[in-house]
Each structure stands twice: as structure tokens, then as C-alpha cells.
């Protein structure tokens, strides 16, 4: 195995759920070269991917799809806060999440649909027709919380979207 490929494999192993841009940035590899070696690692079954909201996340083998999607989303600051709040408070309503996390309703709604699309949460409706968010795999999700943390660029983008959502309500 080439040095670049070994470095990529190692980096993914120590950062499960790292996304493509982060990989090329952290290892300072050209996009084409990274893509080539990642494809070879995927073909060889040494890595797996999940595509979430336009970004491809890379994982070492050994995680099931639910675990992979959980890790990928726990790397994003806002959705991580929503997950933590839902773990601590059962099935919060969307309005409660927006109020407690102090973010715009559109921010909550975007991240909740990401969670629902990923199969990690489902929407439930109470007697008043309010939306509540229920995690579908709470114990698995809780166990993975400490495995990954959001990186600085991810935090900045998340904070930017919260600012824009709050400044320019739909």
C-alpha cells in the first residue's frame, strides 16, 4: 500500500466520519489523488462511506449504517446539540428545541429533517398537532457521543447558518 493510501486509511481510522474536504485539508493531499486512493480503499472493503446532505463521510470498516450516520451527524455542532437535548429530555417539541437551544425555527426544522432522512429520529405529533422529535436509536446514539467532536471549520459553518437563519427568518 502506498504511503498516501496508508495515511488516508489511518486518518479515517482515528477520525471515523471525517468528510472529504477535511481529509484533503488535514493531510494536505490534492483532491484527485485523495479521491483515487479513497476509491481503491473503498473497493478493497477497507473503508465505508455515508452521503449526508451533500457531504461524503468516510469510516473504517466495522460500523453499521446507523452507527455511521450517527457519527457523521455528531460531528456537526447544531444537530449534535439537538441530539443531546433529545437524549436528556425525551421527545422535545420543535418549538421547545428552538427556544431552549436559542436558534431559529428554520434551523431546528432543517436539522430535524436531516435526522429523519438519516433514519436516526422520527417526528411525532401530539394532540395539539405540535411536532415532537423522537430519537430512534437513543442508547446507540448516546454511546457514540464521546467518539467524535465537531471540528472548528464545521462549527464556523454551523454558527454562520444559525446566524443567517436567525437574521433572515423565512
Amino acid at each position, binding site marked *: 500500500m502506498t504511503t498516501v493510501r496508508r495515511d488516508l486509511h489511518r486518518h479515517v481510522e482515528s477520525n471515523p466520519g471525517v468528510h472529504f474536504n477535511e481529509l484533503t485539508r488535514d493531510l494536505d493531499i490534492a483532491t484527485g489523488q485523495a479521491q483515487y486512493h479513497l476509491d481503491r480503499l473503498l473497493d478493497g472493503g477497507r473503508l465505508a462511506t455515508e452521503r449526508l446532505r451533500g457531504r461524503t463521510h468516510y469510516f473504517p470498516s466495522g460500523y453499521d449504517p446507523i452507527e455511521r450516520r450517527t457519527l457523521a451527524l455528531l460531528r456537526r455542532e447544531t444537530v449534535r446539540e439537538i441530539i443531546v437535548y433529545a437524549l436528556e429530555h425525551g421527545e422535545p417539541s420543535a418549538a421547545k428545541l428552538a427556544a431552549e437551544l436559542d436558534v431559529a425555527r428554520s434551523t431546528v426544522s432543517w436539522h430535524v429533517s436531516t435526522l429523519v432522512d438519516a433514519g436516526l429520529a422520527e417526528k411525532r405529533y401530539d394532540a395539539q398537532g405540535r411536532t415532537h422529535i423522537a430519537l430512534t436509536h437513543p442508547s446507540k446514539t448516546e454511546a457514540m457521543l464521546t467518539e467524535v467532536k465537531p471540528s472548528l471549520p464545521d462549527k464556523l459553518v454551523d454558527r454562520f*447558518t444559525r446566524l*443567517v437563519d436567525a437574521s433572515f427568518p*423565512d
Partner: protein
Amino acid sequence: MLQTVGEWLNGTEATVLLVVLALATLGTATLFVIGVVGYRRRGTTTYLLVAVALGLLVARSLVGFGTAMGMVPMPAHHLIEHGSDFAVATLILYALYRSGAPSPTT
């Protein structure tokens, strides 16, 4: 590098200006990248307007470099800089205008 600056600058001014321009380019380019990633994620008109406004801030810094290096003449510099100020203000005002009045949440 100081030999290449415009005639209207002395050595010290040129150094300070180039440092400030470098910082401005770094800051605005970082913001612009964040804005583009935000737009790619959300894909809404609001995000597009904000990303374009941030892109214009990068363009201002680049034009500043052009003038400091003597490549963009002063009248063109002022026209572009103030024209882009107008464009940034218009983009953000339009984003605010189209965001509308608050509506009750369900």
C-alpha cells in the same frame, strides 16, 4: 515588493497598507468560503444573497491590492469599491426585505 507599489505611496505606508490588505483578504476570503459552504448546504435565495455579498468583500480586497500595486488606477478603484458597497448594501437589504414579517409558529 515595495518597488512595485503605486507612486502615491511611500515605503512605510505601502508596508502598512499591504499588511492590512493581506489581513482583509484572509478574513473576507474565510468568511466567503463559510458563506459558500452555507449556501451549498441550504441552497436558499437568502444564503445566495449573503454569499454573493461576502464574495464582493473579497473582490474589494483584491481591487485594493491591484491599486496598491499600481495595476488599478485610482478612479477605477473608487468606482469599483463604492459600487460594491452599494451592491452589498442592496443584497443584504433585499435579503431582509424578502424575509418578511414574523408569523406564528405551529
